[in-house]
């Protein structure tokens, strides 16, 4: 009988060789726990993220935009589902995942605790929030857990339309009237900093980073990903003619990157702790919908059971 340390060494060697871990493979309990935490948090973010955008479906100002927005939010639901499926391969049920969300045991991305106040927010979310998410997700296509990596590949393929539709929406506003442009700038002002916070705390303060990097659950650090996002977004903002609300933002030729100002971590921590403008609203919505529809799920189960019996009798 091999002991745990040997198994762990083999496990790490497998990861170092760049092989994927599959559901039935032996894995350290902490690897499993870390993954469940990360994947479920990611899945919950997709699902809770439907709300701030869903808020605007009935008010979209053209039929084209309405169809795009609905299709996009539906994609988020689909992505949540791919991720729940990946999570379920580790032996945790959808019921348990829901329960963790409802009791606050599992988190979701804080960005969705901010309100969507204008139509321009639909553009800013697509361009900045999905843009930040994509930087992270592209890197996760090489994550060590097979089902998670495969879900990411599928998600990345579908996600790029999300960012482009957001940018195109803002482009229409920026090329429109002064009022429309002001609406776009206001959205930029509100969504820029929360988007940077999406990458999480600085590497030095990140509680889970080192081990996750060693296990290749994460492939690039929070700060590296954040820098990548900023570097590619600045020129896109300039093209729109929008100002990034950071007076310290400037090109650093020596580093070959943009320098940027201090992130307000106090706000970040408070929003995580539940003090964001919409924390309660978002979670209550999910719980309420869940409870209001218990009868539907019960009915479908009862009907399925009855019919399974009927077909058994037929066979007999």
């Amino acid at each position: 009988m091999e002991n745990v340390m040997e198994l762990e060494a083999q496990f790490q060697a497998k990861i170092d060789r760049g092989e994927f871990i599959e559901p039935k493979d032996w894995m350290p309990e902490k690897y499993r726990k870390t993954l469940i935490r990360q994947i479920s948090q990611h899945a919950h973010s997709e699902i809770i993220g439907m709300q701030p955008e869903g808020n605007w479906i009935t008010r979209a100002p053209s039929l084209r935009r309405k169809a795009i927005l609905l299709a996009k939010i539906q994609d988020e639901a689909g992505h949540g589902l791919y991720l729940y499926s990946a999570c379920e391969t580790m032996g945790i049920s959808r019921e348990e995942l829901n329960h963790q969300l409802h009791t606050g045991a599992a988190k979701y991305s804080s960005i969705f605790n901010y309100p969507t106040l204008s139509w321009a927010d639909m553009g800013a979310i697509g361009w900045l929030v999905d843009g930040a998410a994509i930087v992270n997700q592209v890197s996760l296509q090489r994550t060590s857990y097979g089902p998670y990596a495969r879900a990411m590949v599928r998600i990345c393929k579908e996600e790029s339309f999300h960012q482009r539709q957001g940018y195109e929406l803002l482009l229409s506003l920026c090329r429109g009237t002064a009022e429309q442009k002001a609406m776009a700038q206001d959205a930029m002002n509100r969504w820029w900093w929360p988007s940077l916070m999406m990458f999480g705390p600085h590497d030095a303060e990140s509680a889970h980073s080192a081990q996750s990097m060693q296990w290749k659950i994460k492939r690039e650090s929070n700060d590296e990903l954040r820098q990548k996002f900023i570097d590619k977004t600045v020129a896109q903002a300039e093209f729109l003619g929008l100002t990034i609300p950071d007076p310290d933002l400037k090109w650093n030729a020596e580093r070959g990157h943009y320098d940027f100002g201090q992130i307000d971590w106090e706000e970040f921590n408070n929003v995580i702790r539940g003090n964001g403008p919409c924390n309660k609203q978002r979670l209550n919505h999910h719980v309420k919908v869940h409870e209001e529809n218990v009868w539907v799920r019960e009915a479908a189960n009862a009907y399925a059971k009855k019919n399974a019996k009927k077909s058994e009798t037929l066979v007999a």
Partner: protein
Amino acid sequence: MSQGINSSLIKFVVRLGDNNLILGHRLSEWCSKGPFLEEDIAMSNIALDYIGQARVLYSYAGQLDGGKNEDYYAYERREHEFTNALLCETPNGDFGMTVARQLYYSVFAYALCNALLKSKDETLSGYAGKAVKELAYHVRHASDWTLRLGDGTEESNKRMQHGIDELWMYTHDLFATLESDKELVAAGIIPDVAAMKGEWLEQVKDVIQRATLTMPDVNAWQMEGSRKGRHTENIGYIISELQYVTRAYPGCEW
């Protein structure tokens, strides 16, 4: 095409477009509120089908009507200018109510599009060719759920029955016709919609009975008026949300 028949056709096409837009709007309200995640996705798909159909129909109406665009019909008309069936604007209610509305509407729309396949108007028959496939799926979805809820638990049976009963009074209005439809029927452009009710009744009855539910009283009085722009109070709220941005910022491109 003569002036008269052109204006009759516009009315018919806009009616059908309005049905699709308003029902799609209602279904889109379910987004993030579905009874479980998979069903949330299913309802968004159906909503997208209707919004897509509305766009095709509005574009065609605009083409017949001096080059108006699809958004004119959705965003620039007043409540009384919308001619959607009353059924389409009823509130979502619980999932049983929405399923009942879907059953009533999709069985109707499927039969209508099936008949429009033979339309002498190529744009309409082309539209129907695509729509009929989507609607076949909607009928299947609605029928399946009527069975599950009707023959599920005691509570779901009660709720499904409630949906079937509450919405019954709006169903006759689906078949409403205008005097101007007659020349379109005569020209082989549209079917006689009023005459389609018998078959609809048989199909709906079949599903309702298989779901162990009770058929509403077929002879009960039913509301009408949508084709003349007489609505329920619901329409005002739908339109005020739908048109809020474009009314607050008139004349903009989005």
